[in-house]
């Protein structure tokens, strides 16, 4: 497709109200850039005043500002407007209510949300060849994304999200937790000292493991609900956020919990006696950055060039506990990081747990969420 055709189609979409002015200019600029043209219009569109980024807020986002956005703005002159959300479902509602082109880039923390976003046709296909640094990353994440969106990926996966079972080593015998794995969360000995995440997908996941099933292909849902009921009788509090998880484990309310590796990293850094183990089959997810439809791509590629720098990912790993998804054959992860980061095993190897199959989980989402709410409410 040559540039004129592309430009005319964009113009038609713009006239139909299918794309707003900024999106139009951005897309046109992208098209100009692709066609190797340097018109004044292209220059304007290529250098949008600003891009919008939405993330989880807090210190994590501050770290992104420090290591990525500030250098990016210095280099390109493009400002980053920032927003934050507390859950991707809530964010999705906002994106849908907004106008096209209003959102540009967001933190992406799992495959299911990637699948939902792309199913909703919200993504902007990326040309990964424009991001040469991605070559030193594990390509399995990208393959997964491509499969889900049926073609090009609309996001760059560069980190791993890990979940394990965290416990207070002063109160709980670590050997026993390692040996029992996910069954520890149903151990009557810890009754009243157990907490866990209040999330339908994760709870069903653990219950599937506890009943000896493959979480991505559950045959016996009754067994799953049964394990959830069992857990419900033992658990003091199902937490709703990572911050809540941290305070429950650190203030003496709980001795054991399913836990986000990232949060445990911080607890340990603060000196709390919390250890974490990663049992067989435990949930793992891929994190990255998602690009919304109508976003001008040139500055996005520039940003990813910064995001994917080894020193940036090492810094984030060291300070924030994120686990970069490097290809170990191409990148030499410092020894210090290997031993402290969640998601690495004792030998310092990257541990890839089991990823959720978004098609499977999305397909059951409605029914299972509703059932989960009921089971949690009344047992």
């Amino acid at each position, binding site marked *: 497709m040559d540039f004129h055709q592309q430009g005319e189609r964009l113009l038609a979409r713009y006239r139909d109200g299918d794309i707003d002015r900024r999106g139009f200019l951005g897309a046109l600029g992208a098209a100009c850039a692709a066609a190797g043209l340097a018109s004044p219009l292209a220059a304007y569109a290529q250098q949008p005043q600003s891009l919008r980024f939405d993330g989880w807020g807090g210190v994590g986002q501050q770290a992104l500002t420090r290591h990525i956005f500030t250098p990016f703005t210095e280099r390109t002159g493009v400002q980053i407007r920032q927003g934050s959300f507390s859950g991707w479902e809530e964010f*999705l*509602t906002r994106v849908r209510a907004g106008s096209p082109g209003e959102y540009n880039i967001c933190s992406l923390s799992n495959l299911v949300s990637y699948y*939902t976003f792309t199913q909703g046709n919200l993504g902007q296909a990326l040309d990964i060849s424009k991001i040469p640094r991605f070559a030193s990353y594990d390509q399995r994440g990208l393959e997964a994304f491509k499969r889900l969106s049926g073609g090009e990926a609309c996001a760059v996966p560069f980190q791993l999200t890990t979940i394990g079972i965290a416990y207070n080593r002063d109160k709980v015998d670590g050997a026993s937790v390692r040996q029992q794995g996910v069954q520890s969360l149903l151990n009557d000995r810890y009754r009243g000292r157990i907490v866990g995440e209040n999330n339908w997908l994760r709870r069903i996941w653990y219950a599937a493991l506890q009943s000896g099933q493959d979480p991505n292909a559950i045959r016996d849902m009754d067994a799953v609900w049964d394990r959830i009921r069992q857990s419900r009788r033992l658990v003091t509090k199902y937490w709703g956020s990572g911050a809540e998880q941290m305070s429950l484990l650190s*203030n003496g*309310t709980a001795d054991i919990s399913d836990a986000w590796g990232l949060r445990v990293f911080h607890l340990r850094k603060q000196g709390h006696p919390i250890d974490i183990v990663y049992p067989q089959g435990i949930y793992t997810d891929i994190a990255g950055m998602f690009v919304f439809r109508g976003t001008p791509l040139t500055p996005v590629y520039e940003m990813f060039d910064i995001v994917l720098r080894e020193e940036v990912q090492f810094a984030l790993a060291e300070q924030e506990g994120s686990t970069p998804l490097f290809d170990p054959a191409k990148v030499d992860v410092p020894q210090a990081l290997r031993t402290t980061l969640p998601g690495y095993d004792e030998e310092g190897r990257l541990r890839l747990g089991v990823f959720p199959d978004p098609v499977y989980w999305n397909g059951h989402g409605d029914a299972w969420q509703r059932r989960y709410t009921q089971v949690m*409410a009344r047992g």
Partner: protein
Amino acid sequence: MLAAPAVGCVVAFILLPVLAMALHSFWLRDPNGIVIQQFTLTSWREFLDDPFYLEVLGRTGRLAAITTLICALVGYPVAYTLILMPDRFRALMILLLFLPSWISFVVRTMSWLHVLGPGGLVNLLLRRMGVIEEPLPLLYNDFSIYVGMVHYTLTYMVLNIYIGLQSVDRNLVDAARTLGAKGWHAFLEVTLPLSLPGLMAGSLLVFILAAGTYITPLILGGTGNVYYSNLIYEAVIPQLDWPLGATLAVVFIVVLTAVIGLYARLAGVGTLFRKVSA
């Protein structure tokens, strides 16, 4: 004519949103959570077919009723003390009563974690004094929910009772006493009945506020402490099911309106007000 702006406000800020909500409850939701404006009874059928929703509604009513009762029992003496205070102290006390509401509701609720938790203030003190060995389970149960609810609603109750008490002419109590009633009797025969409109208004307000909170159970509640507003939240945010959320909300509004109507009739708030103000 004069009522026009008021009517306009009611229509714009109350009636229209409720109608919009009612309309939403009949739309279709696609598997991705997108609402399609196509008439369907799916959400209503879901609501009516499953006794779960009404069960939680009943549970919520009970929570709100008990909260109201506790607030009334705790709030009345507080308001009465305020009335008896010298003016200077009273102004200070009312200021103190209001002070916490300048802090975000979520933060105020979370502060109870540090009071009731196993390492919290109460347990710490009791352990220091040697009353207990192991921390008491004060958090993540009905107890902590009621603490949070009462904490949230008590100010409204106290202020309403206070206003009710303020409208009671002190001379009436003096008259009753000169006629032979002891202080306690004068209170029961004069002050209490005449301050009932304030108590009633406060109770209604507290009931509605308590029935509608979802933050308190979320933060202070334990396993299974799920109430009606939590269901609405679950439907709309994580489940992305706006039509079901709208259905639940419409039912909630209808039920609350019915409760208010019934209450006004039973308690005779209207007639009581008329008597006193005349």
